[in-house]
């Protein structure tokens, strides 16, 4: 590629095809780094709230060993739904089930407390080799 062509090019690669291959490689690399870190290096898992809500019941205590799929806490949240063109909000109660096995190290909130999406709710010891 000439210097003049290089100046006009939108990519650092020789062609768009090379850029596509590099993008596949980088995405793969990012996934491998994240999965390896999460599977083998993460010491503990902070389980975060999936939505805004309020804790109504905590089903585990510190020191408990939990299995994948085990109910961890019950929370109340608001669900938005379009019904005949109108937005309707209803309060629903949901149970959060563990996505990972491990031992409960600490509870960050008590029953009755409100939380925002992304707030840490409890910390679980990570079982090496599993994806939390």
């Amino acid at each position, binding site marked *: 590629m000439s*210097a003049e062509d*290089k*100046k*006009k*090019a*939108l*990519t*650092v*690669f020789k062609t*768009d*095809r090379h*850029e*596509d*291959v*590099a*993008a*596949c490689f*980088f*995405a*793969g690399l*990012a*996934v491998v780094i*994240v*999965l390896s*870190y*999460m599977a083998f290096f993460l010491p503990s*898992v*902070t*389980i*975060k709230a*999936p939505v805004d809500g309020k804790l109504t019941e905590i089903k585990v205590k510190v020191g408990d060993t939990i299995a994948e799929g085990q109910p961890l806490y019950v929370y109340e949240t608001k669900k938005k*739904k*379009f019904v005949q*063109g109108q*937005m309707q909000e209803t309060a629903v109660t949901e149970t959060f089930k563990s*996505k*990972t096995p491990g031992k409960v190290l600490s509870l960050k909130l008590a029953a009755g407390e409100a939380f925002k999406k992304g707030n840490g709710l409890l910390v679980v010891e990570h079982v090496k080799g599993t*994806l*939390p």
Partner: protein
Amino acid sequence: MEERGFLGKLAAIVPGLAMMVLTLYLLKQVVEPWLAGVAVFGQKGYITKSIGLNYVLMSILVGMAYRNLLFRGRIPDWAAEGFRTTRLFIKTGVIMLGSLYTIQSLAKVGGLAIALIVAFVFGTIFFVMWMGKKLGMDRSMVGVMGAACGVCGVSAAIATSPGVKAKPAEVALAIATILGFGIMSMFITPPIGRALGLSDYQFGAWVGTGILNSGQVLATCLSFNPAIAPGTAVAYGEIWNVVRVISIPFVVFFITLWYWRGEAKEEHMSLWGILKSKFPIFVLGFFGMTALSSFDMLGKEGSETLHMLRDWMAWIFGIGMVGLGAYIDFGEIKKAGGAPLKIGVAAGTLKLVLSLVIILLFIGKEASF
């Protein structure tokens, strides 16, 4: 430019890339949280929630300011190589977006999305060809504009240009015109979407059909709803957009045939040849990621592993957005005036309005997936 070794090329990328990363870091970690706390009209978070001025839009605006104010229209040599990684970041992010879907969800979106997109892609190309003939434009320019307006700006224009023997200036004009229209769409569609009470599904489908450039579809969806998760505007907009991007080789083939038939010349290009040389293979990466996600190999939905993967995705896209802004040159857009501008604005507006009407009439608020 002298030939550099691999390490030399890598070193040349560092300054520009560092500038993009630092810009994103400041906007995402410092400016956006600060703006979210500022009270306007007695309402905290008014700027980020009501106006939708989030880190995505700010990244593009700051990128535009770098190009047009700080660099006065031309990215300097020390930063140019780094800024050229922009599309790499956007493509990498799009591949990672595949993790938001499962094969089951893609099968559900299939029929409706494909029908709408095929109708809009080829409808726009025919419209551009008809208008180009009326305005007496060069066939090569019409070919590039048709691909740019029909499919997705930059990549389609570049992919079509060799087939229709377009000059670099024509490609630049087409790109500048559709990017110019796209910028306008980026700022006006989120408030329209909010005012009409569009759901994330409807907004994603509208923008994924109506906006001409992949990066801009992404930015617009993120400014409507900055969350990256299944069921958000960006998830729907991108799946619409990916179906459109897949049509690139077919569009290139169609326009090339049209061009050469008109030029009364023989060109022996097989469909396989076009597919082999033009198919955007990063789209295969997207589907690869979807396959991994369908088999729960990236962690279960709602898991901490997927949270972390989406955090990385947000950073990768953010860097791409700063670069995208820096490729918007007001001077080039001004130069692109005249016939290409008329066609670009007419085709773009028609597509945007028509797709909105169809979405309001036929697409429900809630997705079937």
